[in-house]
């Protein structure tokens, strides 16, 4: 494990960038628990100060310290993305692998549902739901809802792989040997599908945070609960760009780009590493 890490660190620039940005995110995550202020409490520090050593990211027009606010906002957004990605993976993997392997009527029925979900217009539905139940909506409900809308593309992707895998000789041999269906799917097919699952997880993660930001900017989430989108919402409310408090927008946007790019590059580097073919050529280089 350590060897793999140092090898990747030495050879892959993607990996280095990814690790740096993840470390940054983790640091923010941990610091959020030591914040001296409540994240949304206003007028605890002087308003409208530009970034300085005392206030790393500056302060807002509402008298909040942006650095400490961002630690909590990033934590909430990351948790939100992780919960969405995890929940939607459960559905996508199960539907994709089961439908693909079973085939026949079960597959047809499941794909009919799947395709219905694909054609649903996500944003209008979310807007509508947020309008209707805005007060009762907390971040966990919203994550579940995004998970419910975010699985169908990936399920189809996984199913397509399994359709091909189950016709291969090793699958037939496994069936002939009397290996139970569940074991065939988990032991023989899942390793093959893993890189796709990995890539789609990161993708889904970014997609859900992006949607959360979209809804927050429109003021359609709980705007008293710090998240990246909510910080941007308040910056817009106070005309941050016009009044010259550019750092109010720079902090959430900059951090989002930095962490997202890092996540993406880390996923690319790890994907390449997970692929046995790459590991083989790495072995050849080492020898």
């Amino acid at each position, binding site marked *: 494990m350590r060897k793999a890490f140092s090898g990747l660190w030495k050879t892959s620039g993607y990996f280095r960038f990814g690790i740096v940005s993840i470390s940054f995110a983790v640091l923010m995550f941990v610091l959020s628990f030591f914040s001296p202020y409540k994240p949304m409490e206003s007028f605890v520090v002087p308003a409208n100060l530009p970034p300085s050593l005392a206030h790393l990211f500056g302060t807002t027009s509402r008298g909040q310290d942006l650095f400490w606010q961002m630690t909590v906002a990033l934590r909430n957004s990351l948790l939100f993305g992780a919960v969405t990605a995890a929940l939607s993976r459960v559905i996508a993997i199960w539907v994709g692998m089961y439908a693909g392997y079973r085939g026949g009527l079960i597959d047809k029925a499941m794909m009919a549902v799947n395709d219905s979900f694909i054609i649903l217009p996500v944003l209008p539905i979310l807007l509508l739901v947020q309008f209707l139940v805005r007060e009762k909506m907390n971040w966990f409900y919203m994550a579940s809802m995004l998970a419910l809308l975010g699985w169908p593309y990936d399920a189809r992707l996984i199913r397509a792989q399994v359709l091909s895998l189950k016709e291969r*000789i090793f699958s*037939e*041999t*496994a069936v002939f*040997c009397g290996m139970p269906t569940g074991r065939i799917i988990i032991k*023989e097919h899942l*390793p*093959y599908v893993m890189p796709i699952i990995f890539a789609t997880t990161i993708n889904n993660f970014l997609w859900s945070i992006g949607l959360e930001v979209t809804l927050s900017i429109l003021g359609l989430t709980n705007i008293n609960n710090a998240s990246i989108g909510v910080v941007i919402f308040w910056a817009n409310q106070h005309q941050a760009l016009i009044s010259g408090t550019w750092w109010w927008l720079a902090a959430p946007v900059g951090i989002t780009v930095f962490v997202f790019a890092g996540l993406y590059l880390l996923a690319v580097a790890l994907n390449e590493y997970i692929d046995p*073919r790459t590991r*083989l050529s790495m072995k050849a280089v080492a020898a």
Partner: protein
Amino acid sequence: MTTEVLRTNALRASYVTHLYGMDREVRVVEDVSLSMRRNEVFGIAGESGCGKTTLLKLVAGFCRPPLFVQSGSVEFVGERGNVLSLLEASPDELYGIRWRQISYIMQGSMNVLNPVRKVYKSFLDFAYPHMGRMTEREFRMVVIDHLGKLRLGREVLNSFPHELSGGMRQRVTIGLATICKPSIIIADEPTTALDVVIQRETLGLMKRIQEELSLTIVLVTHDLAVHANMADRIAIMYAGTIVEEGLTTDIFEQPAHPYTRHLIGSLPRIGDKERRGFLKGAPPNLAAPPSGCRFHPRCPIAVPQCAVEVPTLKPCAGGTKAACFLAE
């Protein structure tokens, strides 16, 4: 020893598909009765698409839709004379004999190993559950020992299949099929896609294992040279039917069926520069097979009777049994 270990009785099977209200039936195995004996290599030869692989699947008791058995049976005779009908057996009964009694090297045997699983994992997945009471550590020792006999080092176990050469992969596959010491190995084109050197090595290995364990190999290939080297008895298949059956030497020396004669006549011989003759026409469409003898449209010596009646296997002068009205 001439005891039977596996037999098919008047086996008839077809692929049945329903698509958009259209029914299609491809009658791919027609009235096949074969008997395989203990400690012999039984070869099945025939051109592409004549039903060899389908017949093997049935013989292995591995019948899955869209393949359906119309009539007949496949029977496995155990060491104590107990008979198990493979096509009617329960999943538990099949589980009990698969790999332990019958192992099956499928067509495209280079791909039996999962490309993203290490070789040892494939052994664990496929063979370990059939080894009876044995700890994983013991099993690992058995596998290392067994692969050693196939001249494969223990480092093979921790490799991915693509790290092995074609010949090594083939040997691993044979190792996988023989690790449980079955009484029958069913091998579907085990040497196709290998060059002749590896082919010879692989065949030698199979023959050695067959003699060591005194097991039965059912060998399918369209390569008659392989059959000549390996098989004790051969069945020649044409369009889903067995047209001739007999000892390998008899079939090669005095084939009785006109199809067999042409098949053997088409083999090249070293030093012989004469052009080889070939049969006119194409293999029949099994969705609408010819009436009577399925070979009659292409047969150079066909008589009117051939288009009406179906010939059955009958003993001929050369020692073989042929399904032809004109064979003697």
